[in-house]
């Protein structure tokens, strides 16, 4: 085994010995699939048949008029089955699980989108399924917990650590080190030990391939900028890969939480608060203290409050190819509101970070420019959080009534 999975010094595979053989197997199966053109065709076919691909690239006419600047397009990953780009990665890994002959899948989830996608894949392919989810996230993304359970998955609350995404990843690893013979761990983002960053990015690259083709069809030219939110980095890498070799500015938007100076955020690349470290099996920028202990993070979006970030994005930050910004919770709620009122789009709180940054920059761009916002998912899952943010009175009454009904 040689040193592999490095992106200008980020990445690697810091594995406990018990998992080395499992990763070798995965690496081999993935490498074979990746170089087999028939595999990509099979993948594309299943994504079109089961998940509405290619997803549309929607022209946002009203927003364009509102800002009076660039022509704004939205890549509609929300229209995937289960409502987010997570389906792309999950179905791809599902095909690999079939090749490996394993019968059970496990996954971590933050927003619950990756968990729901994994649960549907497991149902479709006939795998057993266990999802680990931090207790804090279970409470704020309750609709997705419901769907995972209805889909036949077992959802295990994680009560350790900060009780959010990173802690769910730890628990999934603890399951995997015991059950690797039957079980594949479907990691949900472009993080973790090699080959996960490469593999997840590979499956998500379908977003960028489509988006590039679509914008050339519609406009005959490339966009000036592409915006995507960044949790672990999978939807961002997905769309960015379509434009890496083009003169297109790529903007990754991290969770600004209560503001970069508040200490309550999850901006690893846009803030100065993160430093290079090694955890969860790979080397990247982490929000950690001087001892190397991971810090608490915060975001209104459960899918963005992760302590680490894709090693591939860490490289693209260092070499200047991607610009990283952040949007605060408040800016995100405002952007969400505007996307709904002006376009009838309902972005997930995660995706609304990309909208928020695009809205901040749109007034400075010219009418001749084009921008694309990646709408990584739909906001239905966030109904409780969004209702609270808007302090929606009739929703509140409804919930009270429902509670009384259950109490009766």
């Amino acid at each position: 085994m040689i040193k592999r999975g490095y992106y200008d010094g980020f990445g690697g595979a810091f594995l406990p010995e018990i998992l080395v053989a499992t990763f070798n197997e995965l690496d081999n199966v993935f490498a074979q699939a990746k170089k087999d053109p028939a595999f990509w065709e099979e993948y594309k076919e299943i994504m079109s048949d089961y998940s509405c691909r290619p997803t549309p690239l929607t022209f946002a006419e009203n927003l364009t008029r509102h800002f009076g600047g660039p022509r704004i397009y939205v890549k509609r990953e929300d229209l995937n089955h289960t409502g987010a780009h997570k389906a792309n990665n999950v179905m791809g890994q599902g095909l690999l699980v079939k090749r490996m002959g394993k019968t059970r899948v496990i996954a971590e989830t933050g927003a619950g989108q990756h968990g729901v996608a994994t649960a549907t894949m497991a149902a479709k392919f006939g795998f057993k399924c266990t999802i680990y989810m931090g207790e804090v996230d279970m409470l704020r993304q309750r609709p997705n917990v419901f769907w995972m359970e209805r889909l036949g998955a077992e959802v295990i609350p994680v009560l350790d650590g900060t009780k959010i995404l990173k802690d769910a990843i730890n628990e999934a690893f603890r399951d995997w080190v015991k059950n690797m013979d039957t079980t594949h761990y479907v990691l949900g983002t472009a993080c973790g030990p090699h080959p996960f960053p490469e593999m997840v990015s590979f499956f998500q690259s379908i977003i960028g391939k489509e988006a590039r083709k679509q914008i050339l069809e519609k406009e005959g030219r490339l966009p000036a900028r592409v915006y995507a939110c960044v949790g672990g980095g999978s939807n961002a890498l997905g769309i960015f890969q379509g434009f890496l070799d083009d003169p297109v500015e790529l903007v990754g938007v991290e969770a600004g939480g209560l503001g970069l100076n508040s200490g309550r955020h999850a901006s690893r690349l846009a803030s100065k608060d993160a430093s290079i470290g090694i955890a969860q099996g790979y080397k990247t920028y982490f929000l950690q203290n001087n001892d190397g202990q991971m810090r608490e993070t915060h975001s209104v979006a459960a899918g963005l409050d992760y302590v680490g970030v894709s090693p591939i994005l860490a490289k693209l930050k260092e070499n200047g190819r991607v610009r990283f910004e952040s949007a605060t919770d408040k800016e995100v709620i405002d952007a969400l509101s505007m996307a709904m009122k002006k376009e009838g789009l309902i972005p997930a709180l995660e995706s609304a970070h990309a909208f928020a940054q695009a809205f901040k920059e749109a007034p400075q761009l010219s009418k001749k420019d084009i921008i694309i916002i990646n709408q990584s998912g739909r906001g239905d899952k966030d109904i409780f959080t969004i209702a609270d943010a808007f302090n929606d009175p009739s929703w509140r009454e409804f919930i009270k009534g429902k509670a009384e009904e259950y109490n009766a």
Partner: protein
Amino acid sequence: MLESYLLKKLQEKKILLMTHIVLGYPNFEDSFRIIETMVNAGVDLMELQIPFSEPVADGPVILHANQKSLAAGARVERCLDMAEKVAESFDIPFLFMSYYNILFKYGVDKFTKKMSDIGIYGAIVPDLPPEEGDAYLKAMTKNNLAPIFIFSPTTPDERLKYLASFGDGFIYCVARKGVTGKNTSFSKDLNSYLAKCRKATKLPLALGFGVKEKKDIDFLKGKVDIAVIGSETIRLVDNQGVGVVGDFIKSLKI
């Protein structure tokens, strides 16, 4: 250094006992008392775990000890001070056990130099395979410290040899799949695995994960050189307090 100590000890005893504690758990004063008790009860060597916020290879017992130690404010510097005091006070080898980020953030060169200065013999870093360990291996060698590598039941024969080529002091064999602190069945099934481990290296072998009572250790006699007790003593301290540790170690009659 470590290996020759172990070989000498093995002339007196059939099997040696290594125990594990998490520094700062339940607090630093008790950590010291537990170590003192263990040494007095006849433990041959000890792993001192520097707590980490993401201990992925550890099960609930050690995980919670890590979390509680950190929640009570344990810092790496304090752990190093404690290790220094312990190494000065007691005449057995002490090793560090921690995850790689702790060494990396401190600076691998600085950390290993410090280990050598305060009299620590070696380290177990479960998330650092040799492939990722260039800087660590160089620094350990330079400071005359033993990097302890891990064999697992899923490791192919060829890789056992590869791992052993980087190891020093002894090899830590994990008894089964899974994390620390769960039950292991000490049965014939283990024999062929241990025989494979033995064939792969001339270094002494330690076996850990699930060792918790005299009959487990009796089973291991003649098969490995060191029995490792990890979660069980923490569980005892959790349930019955620091006072029972000495009697427990004596009950193992090593």
